[in-house]
């Protein structure tokens, strides 16, 4: 383990935890942020370490968003009672392989993880009213078999890899079982929040790790968002038509997709 890559704040009191990983870039439906904030808040996550940004991120200046300076952050939290190690980071800009190995070095040699889970939303051309699925990718067939009972949908894909797939591959080479969770996010909720996807994913984690989380508070967010979009459909026939088309399994033109995404974004932005 390259110790100089880490800022270690405290020794983790974990025996054989599971690692949950979320990437902040392209955070469709703000799923990763929501999920990791929720888990840390409810399970008492303590910051235990960070990977230093030097060598992995552009440090030629500071990025700001909505008047706020953004700093690259790659942080580990320990949830002692639940035996969870949580990691959240932006995707590195450079030295991906070294970065992913740093994540696994810390998790494996310092925290003794037994398995890992990555979480990212996958944007889908679907209606928000259509039942959501969590698509899943595993790096070992035994691990896949073990998790069959959770009703996740096996993904098939050939193309450019996401960083989560790259991480699963690196973990496989170390014989660490891992899976990526890809909850579906309707494209018009991708830039807003998608509480339904967050709840679905948290339900899986709750059940998988016996976390005993009360997810009822998430229902309020789901209900409120559904009501707002239902109201928009009543007031705007064009939007209603587009969502109805999606509900019946038909697709929209690019222009129609843009109109729908913009209207829903404006609505949810306005109502906070």
């Amino acid at each position: 383990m390259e110790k100089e890559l880490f800022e270690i704040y405290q020794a983790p009191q974990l025996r054989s935890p599971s690692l949950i990983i979320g990437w902040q870039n392209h955070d469709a439906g703000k799923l990763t942020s929501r999920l990791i904030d929720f888990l840390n808040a409810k399970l008492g996550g303590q910051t235990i370490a960070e990977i230093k940004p030097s060598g992995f991120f552009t440090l030629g200046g500071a990025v700001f968003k909505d008047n706020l300076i953004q700093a690259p952050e790659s942080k580990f939290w320990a949830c002692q009672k639940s035996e969870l190690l949580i990691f959240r980071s932006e995707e590195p800009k450079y030295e991906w392989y070294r970065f992913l190995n740093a994540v696994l070095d810390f998790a494996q040699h310092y925290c003794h993880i037994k398995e890992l889970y990555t979480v990212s939303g996958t944007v889908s051309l679907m209606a928000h009213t259509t039942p959501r699925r969590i698509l899943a990718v595993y790096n070992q067939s035994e691990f896949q078999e073990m998790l069959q009972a959770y009703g996740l949908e096996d993904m098939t894909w050939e193309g450019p890899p996401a960083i989560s797939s790259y991480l699963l591959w690196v973990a496989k080479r170390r014989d660490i079982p891992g899976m990526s969770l890809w909850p579906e996010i309707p494209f018009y909720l991708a830039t807003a929040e998608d509480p339904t996807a967050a709840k679905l994913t948290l339900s899986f984690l709750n059940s998988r790790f016996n976390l005993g989380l009360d997810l009822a508070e998430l229902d309020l967010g789901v209900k409120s968002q559904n009501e707002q979009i239902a109201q928009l459909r009543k007031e705007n026939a064009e939007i209603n038509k587009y969502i109805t088309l999606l509900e019946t399994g038909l697709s929209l033109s690019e222009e129609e997709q843009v109109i729908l995404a913009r209207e829903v974004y404006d609505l949810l932005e306005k109502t906070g």
Partner: protein
Amino acid sequence: MGIKLFRQPELEKPVLICGWPGIGNIGLLAVDTLRRVLKAEEFAEIEPWDFFYPEKVSIINGLLRDLEFPTSKFYYTRLEQGDLILFIGEKQPTEGERMYSTGEKAYRMANLVLDVAERFGCRRVYTSGACVSPVHHTLKPRVISVLSSEKLTAEVEKYQNTILMSEIGGREGEGVITGLNGLLLAVAKKRGLESICLMGEIPDWLSSSPFPYPMASRSVLEVFADILGIKIDFTVLDRMVAQVEEVIHRIYESFPPEIRERYDERKFVAQAKPRGITEEDARWIKEHIDELFKKGGEQGGERTI
């Protein structure tokens, strides 16, 4: 980070010829053609993960099967005149969006390539690339050489259709061979190896075109054939040459007549300075090349080149 050696061939003072992608893929195409016609055998590979992001993942029924990275492979063959190592890099290791290597990764890659070459007793290295020149596309591309030492001048002057970089003029004796096709030679020189770059000429207006320039690869290959004392079957490459020439000719025919006339002067002038077209003409061609290429494609139908 390292080298995977699949076998340990017994080689005697082999020369190394390297090719990475670059303008018109001139060097890469030449070296890959050599590999193919000589049936060179793969014997080693540079592990890709420290240099490249994977390009493809295969996930089937929920199971991650494989990741594919750009390859950087070594091949060898034995020839009557001596042994040969070929190195083919599918991509230059870059940081960010650049096409060419710079910095630490490129330096590491160059040293790894030379580590393998020296391990097998290599003392001479060739790379190949493009020399962007104010030439007419119908003229046979010349091969322009840059050497690690003046001692090599006499030898290179004997190569067919080859001149020293200083002979083409207009460059004030200075220039840069961008990326690993250049850096490797510098690192080789520092390690005490002889190094030679053989660059095929490509017309300036085609230097940013989206297709390869096999005419220059052919010129470079003819020189390699001389050096290695071999005969090369050009059938496959010539097919590609014919296809690309046809596309270029269509683009050329769509030049405005006054530009074409000025450009055609290049056919009759020994090139020392850019001749035949004005800077404005060159800008016009570059700005329109994508459009012109598309027109050529539309008329000729879809083709793989």
